[in-house]
């Protein structure tokens, strides 16, 4: 691993780039808005009253801080380092997505925007967006691929209950990347009044850094809780990666702590040796999509391929640009887990700890045994349990051949 000089890490640069990644690759119509958003975000960040308002909502509405739980039986099962779970599944709406949505809706209000749009794959970000829009009384349109609408009916119903309009996208393959295209088209059409809440640490600058900052509450809490409970920083922080927002939020506060390994786990679908996976870093190459330069699943002509994963939250053909940069720097370690491995891990945690994890963090759980043994006894590893698995029981039952 390349050594990083402490406190040296100050990405992105003024152009919104993380090394060669990131940037602002949007239609000209959006450029003035992107600059306006950047200025508004920087002003909010520098305003203590904005942070105080956000902290208050995170405490009393989201239910933070989330526990750092010592998973004793999981630890015993593998016989390596102690495994701790950062319980983002216990947040309001059941996942880490709400951290970012709360930050962005407060920013949208500050900017005087009166209409919210969002994209969603599995529906978790859509639900979190619908939630904060209901809380602040703003109209919300969530773009969701028609295929995902079909396979995520409970989340569609949740969004509608909270007053959001769910727009089924039939363009392209009708999944997450097409939903994101459609949200961009809405934004470019309704530039005056509309705020786009992007759900992951990707898209044009300032989104990757902004979403990271809002999700960094995860990493800051891990740091504080580790010092309290373990008396030092953990040996590794492990998280699953689709776009990578929970991972970058957990990693970022540790980037300058060279002794802490940062390990991301991508979705390998049916395997990296097949065309059906969603591992952009390990199975893709750099390109430009959805406003940023990053690793993408693409063919030889530069056409974007559909990602595949059993987890609808991970089957995106790109990855946040900061992960691309941490990967190239060697500061982040990136692994992958297949659908089958995630399914096994899903059941393992349910049985060993009485915690049903979402399929997304089940990918990270699938690698945690190897990581814990590699770190070894006497060490401590933290895994971000980014969401709860209630939404996934139908998918899992189907794969196990159980009729509900």
């Amino acid at each position, binding site marked *: 691993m390349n050594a990083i000089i402490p406190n040296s890490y100050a990405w992105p640069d003024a152009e919104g780039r993380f090394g060669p990644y990131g940037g*602002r690759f949007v239609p*000209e119509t959006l450029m003035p808005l992107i600059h306006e958003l950047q200025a508004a975000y920087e002003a909010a960040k520098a305003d203590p009253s904005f942070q105080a308002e956000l902290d208050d909502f995170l405490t009393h509405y989201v239910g933070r801080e989330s526990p750092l739980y010592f998973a004793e039986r999981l630890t015993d099962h593998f016989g390596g380092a102690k495994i701790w779970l950062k319980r983002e599944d216990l947040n309001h709406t059941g996942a880490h997505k709400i951290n970012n949505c709360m930050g962005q809706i407060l920013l949208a209000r500050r900017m005087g925007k009166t209409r919210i749009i969002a994209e969603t794959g599995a529906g978790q970000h859509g639900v979190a967006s619908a939630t904060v829009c209901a809380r602040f009384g703003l109209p919300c349109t969530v773009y969701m691929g028609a295929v995902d609408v079909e396979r995520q009916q409970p989340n569609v119903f949740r969004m509608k209950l909270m007053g959001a309009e769910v727009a089924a996208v039939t363009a392209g393959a009708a999944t997450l*990347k097409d939903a994101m295209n459609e949200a961009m088209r809405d934004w470019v059409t309704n530039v005056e009044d509309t705020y786009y809440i992007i759900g992951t640490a990707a898209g044009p600058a300032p989104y990757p850094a902004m979403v990271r900052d809002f999700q960094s509450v995860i990493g800051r809490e891990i740091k504080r809780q580790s010092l309290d409970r373990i008396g030092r920083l953990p040996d590794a922080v492990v998280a699953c990666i689709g776009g990578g927002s929970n991972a970058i939020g957990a990693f970022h506060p540790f980037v300058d702590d060279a002794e802490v390994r940062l390990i991301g786990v991508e979705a390998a679908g049916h395997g990296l040796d097949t065309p059906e996976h969603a591992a952009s870093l390990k199975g893709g190459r750099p390109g*430009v999509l959805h406003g940023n330069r990053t690793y993408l699943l693409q063919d030889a002509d530069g056409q974007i391929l559909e990602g595949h994963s059993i987890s609808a939250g991970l089957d995106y053909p790109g990855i946040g640009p900061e992960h691309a940069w941490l990967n190239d720097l060697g500061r982040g370690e990136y692994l992958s887990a297949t659908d089958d491995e995630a399914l096994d891990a899903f059941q393992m945690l349910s049985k060993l700890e009485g915690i049903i994890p979402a399929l997304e963090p089940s990918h990270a759980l699938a690698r945690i045994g190897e990581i814990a043994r590699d770190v070894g006894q006497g060490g401590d590893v933290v895994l971000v349990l980014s969401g709860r698995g209630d939404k996934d029981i139908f998918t899992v039952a189907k794969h196990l051949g159980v009729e509900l």
Partner: protein
Amino acid sequence: MTTTRIDARFAALKAEGRAGFIPYVMTGDPSREEALEILRGLPAAGADLIELGLAFSDPMAEGPPIQRAALRGLAAGMTLRGTLDLVADFRKGDDATPVILMGYLNPVESYGYEAFARDAAEAGVDGLIVVDCPPEEAGPLATALDAAEVSLIRLATPTSDDDRLKVIARGTSGFVYYVSVAGVTGVKEAQAASVAPAAERVRKAANLPVAVGFGVKTPERAAEIARVADAVVAGSVFVDEVAGALAANEPVVPRVLAKVKALADAVKTARTSASPISAFLGETV
């Protein structure tokens, strides 16, 4: 630098005292053969310049008609290399009509900027419009295109204020494409009354001809825009003709070319026929 086809064509249009017409068609839509036939027929149908769409899987600023056209082009097996070959075939019979490629950055980046610029110039491509590559991100691409004498055409929009126009105008050549509506292609309708002052602002900032597109669907609207712009672009209306012909199981090429001629004729006679917009603006254009 020698006089480019684009500069020569706009100089000729200025001498004739009329606006140019720029039809947009999609590469490989619905097949390579038919796309080539369409290209070859465009100048006779009244095209002064040609915009050839590059097919991309994720065209985020396009409305449904051009999204579907891109998928048809991809389904027909069209690639960026294939598109350059298409232009080279067109050039064998026409060395005067400028051809501008319009698309998204990733296929060009995947091809490699230098290799693309070289091969595009060799194929007879005159300009490139990249929808998702604003000036801030265009440096390396612009350098490669400059070296090959291919123009990088910039976009200006209703959200571009005077400061932004300065950024857009810097280092641009050929013409500026004014996107007349905030939105995607082929949905909202362009309004000549708001386009007129905007086109003038862009023309002043860039000191280049201004082509106006997005939201031009009828001969009437094309004529209105022709009275206030240096050129008029229309696209969704033509790819819709492809879709319509396919659905009706009719020959594609004549239908597309007939539609091009209808709009081109309207543009050509716009400034000699009655001009309600000039009257409205109280000036002669």
